[in-house]
């Protein structure tokens, strides 16, 4: 029985089904690994991901990314299979520096929101200016969506591609809010 349960796939709260209200794709992300990194100094890299980028920006790519959310706080996302590797590299990269690297893979739920009117859809609940000048590709911030706290990341590229990260228990609300918002941008 142990063997049966071992390596159980993660049960994601939202599944992976894409919906496309008003042409915007809303798709819960796959099981990923995520870490909260806290460290006071911004020198160097952690597992190849830079620490010294401006606050409220994201670096890396869609697979491996690091979002700097505060002066000493980063949210890191990597494929699930690289979780152990990341922890090992981080430990050696940060050796000798006081830091915390906490696994929050199961705390966070990701939802990808993409499409021409994605910003408009997000603005149903997010009060930030998501225009290209104020929130260009590469931006990342902690913010609100309706009544839930989220981290909002705009992926690289000219296309409007966003990652919404929220806590697991709020995922149903956030996902429902996004779908409702998609219907709310109808008729112009």
């Amino acid at each position, binding site marked *: 029985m142990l063997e049966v349960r071992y390596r159980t796939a*993660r049960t994601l709260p939202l599944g992976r089904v894409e919906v496309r209200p008003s042409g915007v794709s809303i798709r819960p992300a796959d099981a990923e690994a995520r870490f909260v990194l*806290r460290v006071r100094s911004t020198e160097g890299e952690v597992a190849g991901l830079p620490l010294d980028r401006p606050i409220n920006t994201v670096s890396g790519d869609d697979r491996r990314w690091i979002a700097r959310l505060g002066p000493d706080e980063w949210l890191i996302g990597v494929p699930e299979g690289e979780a152990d590797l990341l922890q090992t590299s981080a430990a050696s990269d940060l050796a000798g520096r006081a830091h915390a690297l906490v696994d929050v893979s199961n*705390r966070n739920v990701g939802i990808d929101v993409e499409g021409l009117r994605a910003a408009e859809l997000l603005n149903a609940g997010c009060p930030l200016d998501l225009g290209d000048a104020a929130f260009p590709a590469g931006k990342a911030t902690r913010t609100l969506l309706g009544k839930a706290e989220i981290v909002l990341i705009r992926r690289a590229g000219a296309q409007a591609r966003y990652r919404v990260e929220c806590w697991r228990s709020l995922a149903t*609300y956030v996902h429902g*809010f996004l779908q409702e918002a998609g219907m*709310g941008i109808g008729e112009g």
Partner: protein
Amino acid sequence: MAQPFRLSRGGRIDRSRPIVFEFNGKPIHGYQGDTVASALIANGIHLVGRSFKYHRPRGILSHGPDEPSALLSVDRGPGRVDPNNRASVVEARAGLRTTSQNHWPSLEYDIGAVNDLLSPVFVAGFYYKTFMWPRKFWDKVYEPFIRAAAGLGKAPTQADPDRYANRHAHCDVLIVGAGPAGLAAALAAARTGKRVILADEGPEPGGSLLHDPKAEIDGRLASDWLADTLADLDARENVILLPRTTVFGYYNHNHVAMTERVTDHLPSVAGQAPRERLWQVRAGEVILAGGSHERPLVFADNDRPGILLAESVRVFLNRYGVAPGHRLVVATSGASAYQVALDAKAAGLDVTLVDLRLEADCGPEVTRLRQVGVEVLTGHTVVGSKGRKRVSGLIVAPVESNGRCGARRVIPCDCVGMSGGWTPAVHLFSQSRGKLRYDDALDAFVPNISAQAERSAGAARGTYDLAGCLTEGFAAGAAASGSSETRTFGASPTLTGFQPVRVMPTDADPTRVRAFVDYQNDVTAKDIKLAVREGFQSIEHVKRYTTTGMATDQGKTSNMNALGIVAGQLDKALPAVGTTTFRPPYTPVTFGALVGPARHALFDPIRTTPIHGWAESHGATFENVALWRRAWYFPKAGEDLHEAVARECKAVREGVGIFDASTLGKIEVVGPDAAEFMNRMYVNPWAKLANGRCRYGLMLKEDGYILDDGVVARVSDQCFHVTTTTGGAARVLGHMEDYLQTEWPDLQVFLTSTTEQWAVIALQGPKARQVIEPLVEGIDLSPEAFPHMAMRTGTICGVPTRLFRVSFTGELGFEINVPSDHALAVWEAIFSAGEPHGITPYGTETMHVLRAEKGYIIVGQETDGTVTPDDVGMAGMIAKTKVDFVGKRSLARPDVIATTGRKQLVGLMTEDPKLVLDEGAQIVADPNQPIPMRMLGHVTSSYWSPNCNRSIALALVADGRALMGRTLHITTPDGFTRATVSEAVFFDTKGERVNA
């Protein structure tokens, strides 16, 4: 089909698209582009409602948002019924069912009209005066009457089936109003490339240009200029043009709220589109170009159906192609109404114009009008009107040089257009906290000192001529967008200027004249004068006493007239009386727009654990704990709460129970100074806690009172796994971060919320170890290797776990922390492994009972923000040798260290073992003492204990620990009952079972 009052040509309606809607059950024919008001008028209908107080027949006064009288109930289909819609702004469309309001049995014959005869009773301040009249009248007469009469229209009874959307938006320049000034401002701002939003409440941008077809701008017809301007703006990526969008609220930091009516005007809606959208705009600069409102003239019976504002007559003629009547009298004290008369004459109406101004005070407009054959009576007042459900004549008289009225003359008519001058719409400016200035020449308050990044343009600041509006608008748009471009516009001249008049001179007894100032709240000039005579001098007081300006139209048509009357009565200059404060919303807003998507499942986030679905499918009943939804108990068929909890409680003490504790707050405290930080945050000592061991932590606020508690495990030298209460998780993390960032930035510690990383499965009961033994790897579960209050890491079902040996029940127990996405699989594995042992799922109610049997406190239940560690018998946990911790100094306060009087946690054993006390019940020593009695304390927790086979209760009682064995008296719904004070532990008092 007839539409007898439809002009044969003209207007912006689409005559190729006829429509039919309903008014009071009868079909009304109109065209695409009509409002309900214009279609009714096209069919000769002016009587559309009964007034609020006196039930007087009322018609359509205005063509726009300021309409006070023509308020209809609009039915757009099942569940889609709204009262109090202004007929002048509801777009006519097929399928609408509109009905008039405030009458019984019918609009034509209304019993309530008797109020009109009783009008001497319903004077100003009627409501307040009822308080002074015989007391016994209040319950039987006044209150039922006032209640029955209160409110206008019927509130909907069905749930609103429509969708309402919300949208936050940012722009550099927000322009309110797409009339000439707003459009010119948009042109200027758009050219800079800045982000521009242009919002207009009407279905079609253009404002006054829409009913001014002969006007010219820069040598071209205004309608052509408008079309080109809109095409120009529409083609620009940086401009959002929003028709049907009312800017209703102006808040701090240029946060502006507006509602967009998305689908109400459409006969059918594609499935999911919202009815309305609430826009919350954060604008760099705001340009207020909302125009102005025309003032009615105050004369006797100025409220008869068929009496309209003069400019509205012009709008109906020119924009909608309908004649409000065949024989029109224009009554005015200013020049703009001459244009109305000119246009009406050109449309073929029989027109007479009555001007209060003396001939010498008038401009060339008089001659112009006479030249087209219209009779113009200058120096004439209006002293009354004829007719009842429709005006049939206007009574006018010359004003002689001594101020007296000359011989009366009745001018037969079926329509009156009146104009008492203009009032700039300064509502939004006032909402923005800008300071107004009274302008004598304009007889109006105009924007003066801005409080925010905002400017007004056009009629909204008293510039009434077309060229001026355009030039001023362009300048405002340029300035707001940082452009230095200037442009002057040429335009055909506009007739402007008026002579201020508050009440039209009359030869009648002014105490008998019913001249309405506020049409919606039925306030007459007489009422306002009475209020002043009764001693009210501040306009704010007069307003509340008479209710003038307090209806949903916020006195758009009435405020200046009311103000002028008060100033006149007090013989003060108008600015000395001041003006009332304008508050949001500018016009009524639907509740739906404000609620937006926040309803049903999206009303508030409902937080659920990974095991929630399992609990649902196993029949759990749930309760809300903060935003969490937790399994309350698991009833089997036929069981109620009491029976289910009794069974669950027994099962845990005798076998094994499984409980979802995932909602517990969790914080990972990491860093070289983690132990020092813990020492400062909690009362307990942490430095010597060994790795892999747990301690119950107690956290105080600065005032020394208990803030939170929870078990903490030391994971490593530099890492603590902290748990908090479910409801306190965010508060505790915030409290910790606060201290870390502001008081002790020198400490090398980092806090991360792991509440949702770890799901927690509590397995409690004598058989708990047997159940998980086969599932756990890498951990020696024997009592010697893994004692109570220890934590080990390993795997369970192959899933990494932080396995706590802790107990909130007093039994042998484990709290199994596993990553959330694996929790359900682990829970199910444990459950099936436990089935041979009779494993029983239990909920929060059983958890509460079990911990109460053991006297374990719950923060927020045994504590209320005024309870110290000693009060709950936990003084022993306080580290004696620590230099400081949050709350330490407060524990030395005289009231905290007082030797007598503090309320202490004790147990209560009722004399009747079957009686379960009420939580919150008060406790006294002697129930026969005089009232007010001295309260000794209150019951904090009270349950039926299946394991003790009697009721148990915890209580905070003054000096309770000194009262052991004493009998106290506790309130019940019927009186008092008796209970004995005991230790606050009822089961396994020696605490041996946790070590099994």
